[in-house]
């Protein structure tokens, strides 16, 4: 399957139709956040320095600081030094993290969010950009869109930025030549069109020289569009969420002085005393007895964005994460499904695969989910969708999540808080953003699987047991001593109060894997099963020692992928001659006699690990080897 990303059209309802509110001049609106993104070296930081200078937003002394810093490094005035405020950044000459800087245009305030262009810093860019109302995509007029241009544009779309202004920077290099710039503009518009991003303006500019930033450039007399400042001033204020049906995810429930408060922030709509609300997926109904605030004007009503507390009648006790919504308007109810399609931006350093389990955070709700399918992966070279088994680090994809129970949600809508799913791993780390598109239908004949995850975090497990967990995968030739070393280590770990379990090849084959032979496929299946068992035991907090020949690197890589973090490859490096000489089970003799086909080391290959986390050499006594393994395990699991 290969289709353009614009095949996404129509899947997700946009919020653009919501009317914006007109406010009196006395009202002081919050600053409009503007994110500045783009490929490295296309001039983001320079642009920000220039913007601040041109809008007279620099604090006294800042300009002198920039001049001084530039002089010290033997450079002409570098606008970007303004932002590169961390020593480490200056030393490397790159912007590390996002920074926020306020500036003002007339009566309107803006906050510039600088987002870095290095791909390994994607998570910083998202941190900076997620709350932005508009984005300036800086594109080098001569170089055109590059890899990070596409990546950032994709992210703007997925995090829901509604207004994008393109700055064709360094247009002076093209001599502000109209035909060249029109071509560059057309290329960028085509790219963004594929992502269904509506471009507010494409401004030919030079941030360094100030052309078309705050003032109109004489070098581009043919250009009739807005300067950057004009384009920014035209960005409409955020849309109001007040007119939408009420939603409040419960953040917490307090009981103070005998009164129960259901606390939360209103995602959208309004709530009044007397309103009847449905509480979460359980569907209990209560009436709002009081809208509670402290030290605020008493009002029996509250609207989107307010953090309030409600008293309910009857005095029910909702759970954190329960969604409150209008009880008497079926049309205003949220979606409800245990299988949800999402658009994913993946932030973990390792790829994502089907079958992995996470917590899906949705506002204050947390749901156990498993990746049921990877439906399409975005090819960043041309922004097309293709089939794929995994989502690479920093990649984008459409995936289906299966929850253990029905989830209430509203589909993602740019500019609103709806459907902003975030995936969290069992260490409570955020590993991806997953805007929810809608319920996923099951194909006929497919049995829906809804795995559940433990509610006990890795940290709690470690605290209860007094040590962390881990998987120690011993690989080596038959007769290399894996099982023996593992079993003795198990005893000495127990003596140190570390709960260890050994998964030994022959023992597994006598039970769990008794249906398997020794063909490459069966060996792989054997390893797959062992890895899954090891993962379960490890998640229960144990140190798991696996003793399996596991001769192929690809199979051990599979095990590493299944187990994930906490996998340690241990190479029991006993030479073939020694193993054959020991031959405790008489297997080598049998293999040499041709009685055992595909015997590793004799008639089947053994691929030694190239970079195991630990190598146990044969030049030591058994006791030394055991103590080396035990020491390694202890270093990993002990706090």
């Amino acid at each position, binding site marked *: 399957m290969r289709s353009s990303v614009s095949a996404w059209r129509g899947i997700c309802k946009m919020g653009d139709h919501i009317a914006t*509110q007109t406010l009196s001049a006395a*009202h*002081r*609106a*919050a600053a409009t956040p503007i994110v500045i993104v783009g490929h490295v070296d296309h001039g983001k930081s320079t642009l920000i320095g220039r913007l601040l200078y041109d809008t007279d937003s620099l*604090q*006294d*002394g800042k300009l002198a600081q920039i001049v001084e*810093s530039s002089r010290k490094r033997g450079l002409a005035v570098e606008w970007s030094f303004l932002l590169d*405020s*961390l*020593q*480490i950044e200056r030393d490397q000459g790159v912007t*590390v*993290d996002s*920074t*926020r800087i*306020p500036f003002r245009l007339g009566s309107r305030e803006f906050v510039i969010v600088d987002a870095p262009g290095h791909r390994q810093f994607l*998570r*910083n860019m*998202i*941190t900076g*950009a*997620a709350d932005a109302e508009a984005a300036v995509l800086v594109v080098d007029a001569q170089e055109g869109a590059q890899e990070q241009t596409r990546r950032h544009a994709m992210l703007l779309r997925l995090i829901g930025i509604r207004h994008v202004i393109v700055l064709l920077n360094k247009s002076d290099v093209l001599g502000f030549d109209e035909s060249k710039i029109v071509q560059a503009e057309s290329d960028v518009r085509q790219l963004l069109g594929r992502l269904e991003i509506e471009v507010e303006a494409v401004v030919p500019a030079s941030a360094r020289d100030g052309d078309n930033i705050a003032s109109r450039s004489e070098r581009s007399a043919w250009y009739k569009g807005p300067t950057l400042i004009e384009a920014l001033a035209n960005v409409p204020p955020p849309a109001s969420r007040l007119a939408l049906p009420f939603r409040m995810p419960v*953040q917490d429930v*307090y009981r*103070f002085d005998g009164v129960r*408060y259901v*606390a939360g*922030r209103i995602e959208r709509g*309004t709530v*009044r*005393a*007397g309103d009847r609300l449905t509480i979460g997926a359980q569907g209990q109904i209560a009436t709002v007895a009081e809208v509670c605030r*402290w*030290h605020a*004007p008493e*009002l*029996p*009503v509250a*609207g989107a*964005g*307010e*953090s309030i*507390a409600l008293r309910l009648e009857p005095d029910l006790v909702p759970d*954190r994460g329960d969604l409150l919504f209008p009880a008497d308007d079926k049309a205003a109810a949220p979606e409800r499904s245990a299988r949800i399609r999402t658009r994913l931006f993946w932030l973990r350093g390792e790829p994502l695969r089907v079958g992995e389990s996470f917590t899906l*955070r949705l506002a204050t709700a947390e749901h156990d989910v498993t990746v049921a399918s990877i439906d399409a992966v975005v090819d960043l070279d041309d922004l097309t969708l293709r089939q794929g088994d995994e989502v690479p680090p920093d990649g984008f994809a459409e995936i289906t999540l299966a929850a253990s129970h029905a989830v209430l949600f509203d589909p993602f809508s740019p500019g609103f*808080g709806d459907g*902003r799913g*975030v995936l*969290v791993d069992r*260490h*409570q*780390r*955020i590993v991806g*953003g997953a805007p929810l598109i809608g319920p996923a239908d099951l194909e006929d004949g497919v049995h829906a699987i809804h795995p559940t995850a433990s509610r006990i*975090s890795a*940290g709690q497990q*470690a605290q209860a047991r007094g040590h962390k967990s881990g998987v120690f995968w011993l690989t080596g030739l038959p007769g290399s001593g894996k099982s023996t070393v593992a079993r003795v280590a198990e005893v000495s770990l127990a003596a140190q109060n570390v709960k260890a379990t050994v998964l030994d090849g022959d023992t597994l084959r006598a039970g769990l894997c008794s249906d398997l032979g020794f063909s490459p496929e069966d060996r792989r299946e054997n390893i797959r099963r062992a890895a899954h068992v090891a993962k379960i035991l490890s998640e229960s907090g144990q140190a798991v020692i696996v003793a399996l020949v596991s001769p192929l690197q690809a199979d051990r890589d599979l095990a590493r992928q299944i187990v994930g973090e906490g996998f340690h490859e241990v190479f029991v490096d006993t030479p073939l001659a020694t193993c054959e000489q020991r031959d405790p089970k008489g297997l080598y003799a049998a293999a040499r006699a041709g009685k055992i086909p595909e015997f590793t080391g004799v008639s089947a290959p053994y691929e030694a690990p190239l970079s195991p986390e630990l190598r146990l050499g044969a030049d030591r006594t058994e006791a030394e080897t055991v103590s080396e393994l035990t020491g390694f395990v202890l270093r990993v699991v002990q*706090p």
Partner: protein
Amino acid sequence: MTRTHTLAEPRVMDDLDQLEAQSIFILREAYRKLKPLSLLWSLGKDSNVMVWLARKAFMGRVPFPVMHVDTEKKFPEMYAFRDEYTKKWNLDLLLGYCPPVEEIDPSLPPAARSAARKTAGLAAMIDKHKLRGVIAGIRRDEQATRAKERVFSPRGAGHRWDVRNQPPEFWDQYATPYEDGMHIRVHPLLAWREIDIWRYIEREGIPLVDLYFAKDGKRYRSLGDQDITSPIESNAATVAEVIAELESSKTSERAGRAMDHESEDAFERLRVAGYL
């Protein structure tokens, strides 16, 4: 029960309402996710606003202890303020003290070295009370290094800030990783600016130490220890006058803090080691 059916409309939120609502949300997240939790009450304007916001979040009370890490070099007015409002606001106050300056890294410039005492005092309190969450009143606009902060900022063993490896933070989802020896700094005021703080103080009528207001043509814009904070030239004697002054000024708030100017990286070194 009487039901009030009304056609009243919700008020339109202005910028302070939005900042307040976001800070309340953050404080409620911290209270729910991080236990034990404590709020750093430096007695300055920002931390008073923070205590006030906590009372907003929890219907008039602060349901966790507040912590004052005392350098024993504060102005006497500050100690008087502390004692008065601990009672008035019904605060559960934890007191900590800072080690003498002789015990601090001598390679730091003098004022930074003096400020680092606070870091050591704070670290001792975090360990003593086994805190998982510490609420601190830093703001992005104060200092460039603070602009890089997260709302929930994990501190590894030894309380160190790993500025190059911060978690992603978006859509109001805060990561709460946990390992032994780790705690999380929570920053409910990160998005506030100095002027917002003052406008909020005015709107809410939040009490402050008098040192912020001009006497004999001088006032303090920021309050640290007596020996490393200096007053600015000012005639602003009321909250409204301070706001007017700030609206016409472009000088940095921490200009009176000596350690920010000793060397380019002094402040960052302090922060990596756990300074606020």
